[in-house]
């Protein structure tokens, strides 16, 4: 059974991926809570994943999907480390506000 593509073409998917990526980066750029920044990063990665999967479909290859799955794992890893950091910071009574993390500056 072969499947032709139904519905929106690749360009639509890519535009959506771009939107996600942009929204995610807006979150990183504008939010101060590290938690929300981590969430925004997830959105960015998902945008990339969407693009990968769309391309995989477009090229009819599995590689893109493999890539996307690997990315998921990576995203999970990043989240794990990030959350660990946030917990550690909370324990040290550090503010959970990236704007107040300014001990390190020139």
């Amino acid at each position, binding site marked *: *059974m072969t499947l032709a593509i139904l519905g929106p073409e690749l*360009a639509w*998917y*890519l535009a959506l991926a771009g939107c996600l990526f942009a929204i995610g980066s807006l979150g990183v750029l504008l939010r101060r809570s590290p*938690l929300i920044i981590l969430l925004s990063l997830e959105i960015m990665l998902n945008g990339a994943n969407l693009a990968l999967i769309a391309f995989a479909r477009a090229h009819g290859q599995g590689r893109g*999907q*493999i*890539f996307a799955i690997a990315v998921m794992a990576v995203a999970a890893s990043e989240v794990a480390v990030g959350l660990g950091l946030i917990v550690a910071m909370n324990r040290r009574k550090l503010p959970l506000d990236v704007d107040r993390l300014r001990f390190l500056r020139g």
Partner: protein
Amino acid sequence: MGNFIVWVVWFSAAFACIGSAVAVVTFSNPFYSALALIGNLASLAVLYLLISAEFVAAAQVLVYAGAVMVMFLFVIAYLGGEEETPWAGGPTWQTIGAVGAAAALLVEVIVAVGLKAGGRLSDEASVGGSFGSPAQIGRLFLTDHLLAFEITSIVLLVAAVGGVVLGHHEKGPHDWGSAAPKETP
């Protein structure tokens, strides 16, 4: 007709996706943001299904929405809901710059896609029925992308160790030497 349904599904998923993404970014409470992200992930999974990526969609729901987000929610709960006024703080140029940069990126991607669409993007390949099935993915993972599979596991392992190291509750003061001085910020 099938096509039309696909379009409808696509659009609802896409709107849900963007809406939830915007919600993630704008909610002041991280807890709600996390919940919105779950929605986002779910709607993405729907989109994945539309382009025959069943396994990925499943993984998305299971791994992401299931495991990762649960972790998030646990931490948020542990920290207590610290609310943050979404757009406050930071200089104005930061906001303007951020919006500008994000918009430029978006426009750029869309332009790139648009330029490309005139050329090759439209002639998508037809794929076999097993495309995107767990079996195919598994086969790929064990043949061509064996290494990717292994490394993914290493990354996860490393992250786990890291998470443990960082999240691990410290038992006492530094036990290396006695003269460890106090930091003066």
